[in-house]
């Protein structure tokens, strides 16, 4: 299975495996995947009949049109890997994601920038989820230890009646650099959306997470959840916004940020209700690790540092 960019692909695949990616996907005939380095497609294998992935390499970026056709239920996840092994560069992905009606699909994405000294990863995504469809999107990042990564994932999405979406963004290993997440979803009747971001900020990381959910349908539900740790001199700002405009719409903003060392954290839960039968709640907690939690683990024989580590890992799990 030698591709045009075989060597680059092998190098990227090594990091992908180390980051918990499925190492068997290359051997399996049934796995669908797309590997991208900078703005080049290194390897693509789409085996599912109902899945269509079109890519167009451009001078300054890569366009990806991913469509899952009506009625297609995919048991195995689709694997996407966006990486850059160089120290510097711009990766600009324009993704158009269309999940048609009555679809069930899961995407596992890995974003890998292990040597980044000055790398920008910009993802501009448009998402549509059709009626009665279920979509799960898990995105795991690794940015190396130099802090030279700038990651800007922006997503605008529309969810039709009875659709479900669960998204999890995780950046726990390595140094974040600068992160600017901006997701905005619009939900129709009975649609459900869960957005979860888990980030461990260190060094001089700058983290900004903005989740906006418009509950524009009766019985629609939204959850914007974030778990952020900032240590050293890292700073974070989490904005969770839910607007409920229809009867029986339910929303909840749940933000927890732990501050260690000289880290700084802010949280802005914005909730808005324009229908008397809708309800949105929020909870935001910022501060140091609860002393009682630490002591409860120390009485089991753990040192203070071990206890703190377990609490943080649990929060980001």
């Amino acid at each position, binding site marked *: 299975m030698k591709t045009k960019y075989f060597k680059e692909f092998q190098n990227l695949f090594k990091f992908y495996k180390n980051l918990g990616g499925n190492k068997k996907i290359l051997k399996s005939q049934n796995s669908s995947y797309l590997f991208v380095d900078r703005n080049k497609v290194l390897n693509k294998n789409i085996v599912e009949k109902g899945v269509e992935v079109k890519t167009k390499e451009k001078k300054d970026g890569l366009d990806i049109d991913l469509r899952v056709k009506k009625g297609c239920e995919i048991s195995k996840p689709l694997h996407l890997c966006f990486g850059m092994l160089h120290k510097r560069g711009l990766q600009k992905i324009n993704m158009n994601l269309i999940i048609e009606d009555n679809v069930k699909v899961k995407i596992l994405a890995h974003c890998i920038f292990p040597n980044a000294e000055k790398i920008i990863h910009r993802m501009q995504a448009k998402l549509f989820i059709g009626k009665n469809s279920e979509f799960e999107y898990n995105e795991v990042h690794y940015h190396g230890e130099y802090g030279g990564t700038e990651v800007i994932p922006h997503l605008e999405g529309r969810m039709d009646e009875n659709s479900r979406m669960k998204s999890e963004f995780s950046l726990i290993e390595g140094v974040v650099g600068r992160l600017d997440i901006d997701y905005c979803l619009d939900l129709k009747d009975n649609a459900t959306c869960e957005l979860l971001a888990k980030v461990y900020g260190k060094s001089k990381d700058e983290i900004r997470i903005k989740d906006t959910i418009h509950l524009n349908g009766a019985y629609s539900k939204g959850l914007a959840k974030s778990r952020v740790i900032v240590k050293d001199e890292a700073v974070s700002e989490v904005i969770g916004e839910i607007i409920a405009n229809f009867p029986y719409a339910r929303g909840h903003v749940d933000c927890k940020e732990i501050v260690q060392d000289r880290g700084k954290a802010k949280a802005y839960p914005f909730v808005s209700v324009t229908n008397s039968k809708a309800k949105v709640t929020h909870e935001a907690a910022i501060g140091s690790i609860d002393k*009682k*939690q630490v002591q409860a683990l120390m009485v089991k024989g753990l040192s203070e540092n071990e206890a703190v580590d377990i609490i943080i890992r649990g929060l980001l*799990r």
Partner: protein
Amino acid sequence: MLEIKNLKLVLNSKTIIDDLNLKIEEAEIHTILGVNGTGKSTLAYVLMGLPEHKPQQGKIIFKGKDITNFSLSERVKTGMTLTWQEPAGFEGLTVENYLELGAKRNNADIKDCLNRVGLEPKEYLEREINENLSGGERKRIELASVLALKPDLAILDEPDSGIDLLALPTIYEAIKFLNEEGCLIVWITHNPDTGSIATRTSLICAGRIIKTGKPMEMLNFFKIHCKECGHINIIDEKLLKSEN
């Protein structure tokens, strides 16, 4: 095995533990009984060596060693542990992970610890220790974790409060089992039913142990006088001198 001499703790200019003396013998289940606000939980924290509860005066002797100046971690190394009246939650940590922390039993026996507190391992091991567990479930998991630790001294702060009546005998059996394995139990409570399994009971009032004796006798005294007394932090000297 555990001796407390002239212990005094002042927090924010308020005396919480006041010249407290108590000697607990080896293999005892010793209950500390008293109304709210008399210093029961504070005594537990002082014994365990929580940093913000360092006594200004007195001595704590455990297994013949003066541990008054031992840190929390040093006390754990001597075989001590503590359960809180309101156990902490741990997002992302499963019951199984939690029970394994510091455990001195193998995996099968850890599961048995859950059985001993009346929780079905299959149903609980994968659950997270978060707000989805009820207060009673959390209390039982805490007790199971103490069973897994196999400590020499367990300070249990109201392990029986918030437990439904039908489950209480199971909790008492679990505490008895721990004791039969050689663990000294200091059991903070205001539940009079503990008299049936305690070896001895001490009554605490205004930060002092005012009486120690057979559980039923102490309970009787408690029922007759302490509840009616209601003098939180004011010791009624007449009552102290009375026989019953």
